Structures are given as C-alpha cells and as structure tokens.
C-alpha cells in the first residue's frame, strides 16, 4: 500500500470550505482499502468523513432520507425501511456478508467499483483502471460482465445490490457541491462506460454524497429483489432484478424493473415501464416487458447465458412481486 496522508474531517472543515477535491474520500473503507491493498487505488491523501453528520435516517412526508454514513446493515433493519421499502431491505441483505454490511456505508455503496477480474489485477490491461491500455475482459473471462450498454472499451458491471433497489424506487441522491446541496435523480448518478470507462459516475471532484432521498411510494405490497449468483451468500450478482408493482383490479398501475449485473449501472428504462401501465399483470406481459427491457443485449462469449437468464429472472421477479410469499 502506497503511503498516504490521512485527515479526519469535521463539520467545521466542511463549513470552512476545506476542499475535498484533492483527497480520496474514505467512509466505511470496505472497498477502498481493499483496492489500495491491491494497488488499484493509490491515493496520496485520504479524507475520512466518518465523523460528519450524515449518519441518521430521517422520516418525512416526502419519504425517507438516508444519511450517506448510515451503514448498510442499519439501513436494511431500520423500521421504516423494513415496512415501507422492503425491496431495499431485501436487496441490501442479499449483498456481501453481515460483517461487510455492518461496516459499509450507503454513500460508499453507491460509489463502489466494479469487480471485473482485470480491473482488480494491476498487471492486466484495463481501460477503467488505466485508460488506453485496452480491455482484457472482452476476449477473456467475462462471465460476470455486462450485456447492455457496453462499449468497445469496457464491459464492466456495477456490482451493487442496494443500487438496483434504489434505481427501482427512483431515489434521489443529495450531493454537497461547493457548499450547495444539489439533487441528482438516481438514474443520472451512474454512467455507461462509453469511451471514458474510468468514470463510474457523474459526480465532480470535491462532490460529497450526503443523503439518499427515498420517495414516498415504497411498493411495500408488491415487490421482489431476486438475486442470481454462483453461491447462496457472499457472491456478486450474475443477474439481479428489483421489481416493484402497483396493481389495481388485475391491471398494472405502476411498474418498476431495475436490473443488476448486466450493465455499468443499474439498468432501468422508464419508457418501457410506461408502456405497460394499464395492462394486465400477466406472465405474458412480463415476458414482453423483459424482451423490451433488454433489447440490444449482447454477450461476449462466456456471459451469453445472461441474455436468456435475465429474461427468466425478470418474469420470475415480477410474478413473485405479484404474489409475495
């Protein structure tokens, strides 16, 4: 691990306008410290935000405000999350291990980096880690890689489970930028790789995620988070589906489907969802939605199976959401 400066920030530091620009932000450290040990991240300076006042969950009429420093575990088990946003509870608990969830924060979860084998191995070419070196995954081991929104320079996926549920819920992200709070819709936080795969998200240097705003509607009646992985715990999703439904007299009143493990960001298409408003909540319609949602999906060899798998998973998740066990 490369030697680095370490600063623990206080609220005064922020109000004094101490810039975060030149530091790498450290929260729970469950991903960053790992990456530093591997030499993937070699920050000169770490700014530990652990003492900043973003460690509460606040309830309001507009929904729930999740502090960026609340741990994943505390979020999942929060009474309002369990009762109003059970899809979020289920997604968080499907992730990692209890040890990691006890340490990992909400803000950090949003900004965790891909688990691409080649990204993690500093001896390998990787455009995300070292722009311009090429992508070893496209013709290598890509069983865990993306099938949607890929580019010639990167086929990595975003590994979060929590983010898939947040995408389905259409959460908003509060960001402190130059002393002002700006609000970013969840689908605009993460990016597709394009020709700048080194950028995972649309935040600017110095930005600080402070909260995640959940909307009032939590889909507590009809929801599912279905995670398909290589073992029953402690494995990233090959494919995951966050499905939320509102049903009125057998018809779809609202439908949200977000996919994990298939793209550089949680995959969700509002225009496809809207097409199904008012239609019957049936397996046939779910199949049709699945087809439209993954239109243009492309495999790279060992991940070809994801195309049919994700269709099956979407239909299963929606049917489970319709009839929660």
């Amino acid at each position, binding site marked *: *691990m*490369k*030697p680095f400066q370490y600063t623990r920030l206080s609220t005064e530091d922020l109000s004094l306008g101490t810039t975060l620009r030149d530091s790498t932000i450290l929260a729970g450290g469950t991903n960053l410290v790992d990456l530093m040990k591997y*030499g993937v991240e070699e920050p000169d300076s770490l700014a530990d935000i652990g003492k900043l006042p973003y460690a509460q969950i606040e309830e309001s009429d507009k929904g729930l405000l999740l502090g960026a420093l609340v741990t994943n575990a505390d979020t999942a088990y929060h009474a309002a999350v369990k009762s109003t946003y059970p899809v979020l509870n289920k997604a968080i608990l499907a992730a990692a291990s209890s040890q990691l969830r006890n340490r990992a924060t909400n803000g950090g979860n949003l900004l965790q980096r891909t*688990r691409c*084998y*080649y990204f*993690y*191995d500093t*001896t*390998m070419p990787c455009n995300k880690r070292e722009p311009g070196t090429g992508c*070893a995954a496209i*013709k*290598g*081991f890509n*069983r865990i890689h993306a099938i949607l929104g890929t580019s010639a320079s990167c086929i990595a996926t975003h590994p979060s489970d929590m983010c898939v549920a947040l995408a389905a819920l259409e959460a908003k992200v509060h960001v402190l930028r130059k002393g002002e709070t700006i609000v970013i819709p969840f689908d605009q936080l993460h990016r597709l790789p394009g020709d700048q795969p080194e950028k995972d998200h649309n935040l600017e240097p110095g930005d600080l995620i402070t909260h995640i705003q959940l909307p009032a509607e939590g889909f507590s009646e009809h929801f599912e988070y279905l995670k*398909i992985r*290589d*073992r*029953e*715990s*402690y*494995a*990233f999703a*090959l494919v995951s589906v966050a499905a939320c439904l509102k049903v009125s007299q057998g018809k779809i009143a609202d439908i949200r489907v977000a996919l994990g493990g298939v793209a550089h960001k949680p995959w969700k298409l509002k225009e496809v969802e809207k097409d199904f408003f008012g239609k019957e909540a049936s397996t046939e319609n779910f199949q049709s939605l699945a087809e439209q949602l993954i239109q243009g999906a492309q495999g790279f060899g060992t991940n070809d*199976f994801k195309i*049919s*798998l994700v269709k*099956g*998973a979407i*239909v*299963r998740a929606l049917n489970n959401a319709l009839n929660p066990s």
Partner: protein
Amino acid sequence: MLNIGNKQKRVDGPQKVTGKATYAADIASPFYHAYVLQSTIACGSITAIDTSAAEAFEGVKGIFTHKNLPERLKNKVDYTDPLSPPGKPFRPFYNDKILYNGQPIALVVAQTFEQARYASKLIKVTYEEKKFKGSLSDNLKNASADRAPEPASNRGDFKKAFKNSDYTIIREYRQSRNYHNPMEPHATSVEYKSDGSLVVYDKIQGVASSLKYLNGVFGLGADRVQVKSDFVGGAFGSGLRPQYQLFMATLAALELKHNVQMVMTRAQMFSFGYRPEVIHTMKLGCSKDGILKALSHKTVGETSTFEDFNETIVDWSGLLYKCDNVNLEYELTPVQSYTPLDMRAPGGVSGVYALECAIDELAHEAGIDPLEFRRKNYVDYDQNEDKPFTSKELMACYARCEEVFGWKNRKDLSKTEPHLLKGYGMATGSWEALQQPASVSLSMNEEGTFTIKCATADIGTGTYTVMSQIAADKLGVSIEKIKFMLGDTAFPDSPIEGGSWTVSSVGSAVASVCEKFKYRIADIWKRNNPDYQAVAFEDISFQKGKLEYGSKTFAFTEIMQQASKEELSIAHSESPAAGQNTHSGYAHCCVMVEVTVDKDLGIIKVPRLVNVSAAGKIINPKTAENQLLGSMVWGLGMALREEGMVDTRYGRVMNANFAEYHIAVNADIHDIHTEFVEEKDDKVNPLGAKGVGELGIVGLAAAISNAIFDATGKRLRKLPMLLDDVLEA
C-alpha cells in the same frame, strides 16, 4: 474409562478457541518481515531488475533476487523434498528464467510487513516474453504417457468385450483446476540464534520435509536447525511439500543474521500447487442384465514444464467394480504453470468422479436402478493387485444409506415448488487405508503424567486428541494424564501427515509404545517385589494409573520410585502390519444426494447429503464425523463452485481471492448426515482403524452430477457445474 470409540472433545480445543494455539505466524519474536514480488508474465526471462528505489525505502533491510543469490545456493544444491515428483524442482531466484505467471522474482525484507509490501512495488522489472501453452486444452497434442507413471495393468480384452456389450457408453468428463485455500495462509517464522543456528516454525504437514529441504538447499543439518509446527490451520495437501515461503524466510534470516517471518497473502496462496485440471475419457460396456463387461478409463492431466506431477487416477476404475476386461491409460501434458500438488484424496477424487458418473450413465442405458447396478457389479477382492481386501463392508454401507436416505421411495419423498425440479443421485467412494512406519517415544514423570512425542502433525484433523485417546486406553489412565507432543524435528520420525494414514501409522505406534511401557513397569514391579516374580504378565491389569494384581494395586508413580528415569523413557518404531502386504486396505462409502434445479434459472441447490462409511474401528466418532462433514462440504464445492480461472493468454489465475474463487459458504450447506457401519478389520493395522480424512470427498461430485441428471435429464460432464451449464445444456 474407555476413550477409544468415544466422542472425545478436542484436547487442543480450548487453546484454539482462546487464541493460545500458536500457528507458524503467531511466534512472538521480533521479526523482519518478508514480502515476495511475483512475475507478471508466464514465460520468458527477466532482462533487467532495478531495486534501487525499493532499497532506499524506509525500513527496508534487504532485497534478494536472481542477481544476488549466494553462490553457495547454486552448485550441487538439492532442491528436492521427500514428495518431489520426477523433474527439476522450482528453485527461487536461481536464474533470470520465468517459468510461470506469479513466480517469486524478488524478496523484500523490511522492518514491517507494510513497508516490505510497498517497497516490492517500487522494484522495476523488464522482461523478454516468450510464447507458451497456458492450459491443458491448448497443449493436448503434447500429452504423453512417457511422463506419467504406468497405471495398473490392463486385463482381459477390452476391445472385444466392449464390442460384444449390449449397452455401451463413450463419454468425456472434465474437471477444472482447484486450489487448496486452507484458512491459515502459508507462513514461516525463522528465529536466528546467536550461534547461527535456526529455529524454523513452518506451516507443513511433516517437519521432516522442511528439514530435508533446508538441509538440501542450505546445508542445514539437524544440528543447526530445528523445525517446529505445533498447529496447522488446515492444509489439505498444500503443506505436503515445503512451499517457497520456507526458502524465502530462511534465506533472509541467514543472510541478514536476523529473525525473519514471511506470511503469504491470500492471492499468493494461488501462486503454487493446485489440484490439476484433467480430462477423462470413459468407455464402458455391460450385458443386458447390467453386468459390467468392459471398462476403459483414460485421463490426461496438466503438469508444469519442470516437474511431472502425477496422481493415481485411472487405477480406481480397475478397482471399484468387478470387471474382467479393463484398459487404463494416463497421460500428462505440461502447461506454463507451477507444479500441481496433492489435494485431499488426490487422484481418487478425480478418477472416481469420472467412473461414478459413467457407471450412472451405463446403469441408465441398461434401465437399471443405479444402486442395484452397483450391487450387481460388487467385487470382494482387489483386481488390480489380485489380493483380498483387509475388510470391505461396502454392501452394509449401501444398505444403510438406502434406508437412511429413503432411496427406494425417493420419488415421492416431498413436494416441490412448480419451477423446481428435484433429483436424486448416488455414488460409491473409497480411499486407501495405508500404514507407514512411525516412531514414538514415551516417558512418565513423578506425577504419573505421560509425555508421548512424535514428529507427526495435526492439520486440524484431531491428531492430538486421537493419540491421547489411544494412549489413555492402552495405559489405563485418564486422558488428562496424557500429553501428546508433535510437530518437532527433535521428536521421533513420523510419516508426513497425509494419505489418511496418521491414525493407522502413528496411532499403532502409540498403542505399541504404551504396551511396551506396561511390560517395563511390570518388570520393575516384579524386580522390586520378590513375592511377585513368578506372576505372568497376562494376570496383571492396568487401570486408573495403577498396576493391578489380584486384589492388590500399585500406583505407577510408586513403582517408578524404584526405577531410573531412563527405564521409563521408552522408544518404539512401528512397522506396517503384515496385512498391508498380503491384503489391500481401503475404506469405502456410499453417498446419496438430493438436488433441486430451478428449471428457468438453472440454480442448483443441494438440500440433502447422506454418507455412510465403512472405515474400520472409529477411534473418535466426533473428529471422524468432523472430517467427513468437511470433506463433503468440499465435495459440494468441487461439484458446484470451485474453479481456478486461468486466463490462458497470460497464464494467470484471475480469481486469486475469496470473493471470486468460490468455496462453498454456510448458506450453501443444508442437511448433511453421516454414519459409520461396523467394520471389523484385524489385518489393516493393530488398531483395526482406517483413516477418514479423505473418504468423504470421493464420489460426492459424481453423486451431485447424477442427481442433476435425474432432475433435469441433462448430463453436465464438467466440474464445476454452474447454472449456465444447466441453461445451455
């Protein structure tokens, strides 16, 4: 008083759960810490290596590369260890050649681990790369039987019998590479003494192997080095041969004249041996009524370019079922990788996987229940060696497993959800019951406590406990009176701990030395009590630390007062039982599994595993069950999870960590049931005990594969079997 056969708790349990058990990296001396820089190419040579920036880094005490390897390590140096396969063993820093990706090319020694690790990154290396064959599939055409040992002799006329069979199958089965991944990473701590001698704490399955290596490489005889290994946190074969951290820590300690410790990282645990990838071709034929007529098993396995690692794989197919026409072939092909290494049930687990899948396929072709098919082809002697078995209660295993599992009525066992397919499968498992020569010493102190020493190891298997049980029973004292000590080159010789032979070998030696003690103490008693001089040994008994004759008792401690210390220090060397020559010794088991397969999503789950084993006398049912559970969990991992992913373009393991190399986790494991059937064996060794460290993993992957077929109608002829294999089959 009887301990043998009791579920004795581990005598070292309290030490382990309170952190007092000292593993190789737990030694508290002030150490320099060593970290290895590994090659980033698989084949070629180092053209330049610049260590200047690393040398200048804070805390760095020394750097070793091929540029400064001491001359004395180059000439007439023997780098072999007792288990070296044919070929030339890997010699760290010997020259500029790169033999595999991840090869240690520099060692940085620093005040702290972190300093050493970071300084290693400051070393600049340039290479000249060469083309290479990165995998078994890439290099099949260079597969050769010349590099492999000859399998058991062919018998009968396979070709003719295969042609005349009513039902035949020809199938190929593939297994991917597996890594050992013991919980404790490999580590060596070397204490450098003022007289230049060393005490080496090594992670090893037999301290004699480390000593042999240190003597061969560094010329350190037993007079200058003591190797110790009190506790080993799992090894599964990865500690059968000394690994490179032993070389590194010793080299640095000798050169820097200081204590040095090297602990491998988890990623580095993927930079040496592994269970090799193999491809099996099976050809089987049977008659209309399911009698096996012809069997051919050919296996091609990977090895390194510098050693010919081999396993006994195909012989298992000549052993398990009655068959008169058998053809066995074994070939090796080199790949640009480190040499493979024995892993739990080496060879057996691979050979029996292919055989038990093929048997299931043939039974299906013949329309016969797989259990019935196996009974029809039962054999009660070793056809490879033409010898009887010491004992074989496999039929009892079949019967008991059938009953416990509910095999007969399995199809209407339980309801399932609509999208779940349920399936049932079984397999036979077997492992050798060998006995090796072993030596022990025994002494008793004034308090009547016995110290028994042997250079064997406890790799988590329960050696401390089981040896204490045997000694307590044989001596007629409580288990608290036994102090069993192991893992020290100062102790009497032991075979390496492996091959499931420790109870058989060391346990028999312990039993005998205790017997010798009883004769000795009886002699002393008679010598000092003229009244009893004519008493026959058979008329004396030994209980509760006392010699009993008639109604009189004499405490061992009392008798000891009339003897010299030397008289009560007894050594014994045990040779294998005669039955080891005249008979073939094997343990056997039957395993049955239930699987569910999600027909849309391909997800495979294993709700139930049942293993019934016949392994002679079970000394400690608790540790024995423990071993079976562990090996069955691993069998499930092998079947459904584990795959060392080598990117053949780079010859590099791409999932060298616990996040992406998937071992089975708790959530993957549901009901596991194990039982032992009674098996009397008076030939295998004096204890009548067979080892169970390896038995449970043998056959399990096949049983799961067979159950998946039962559920889905799909044969997934590869390991691991993943959900995409189900979807794409």
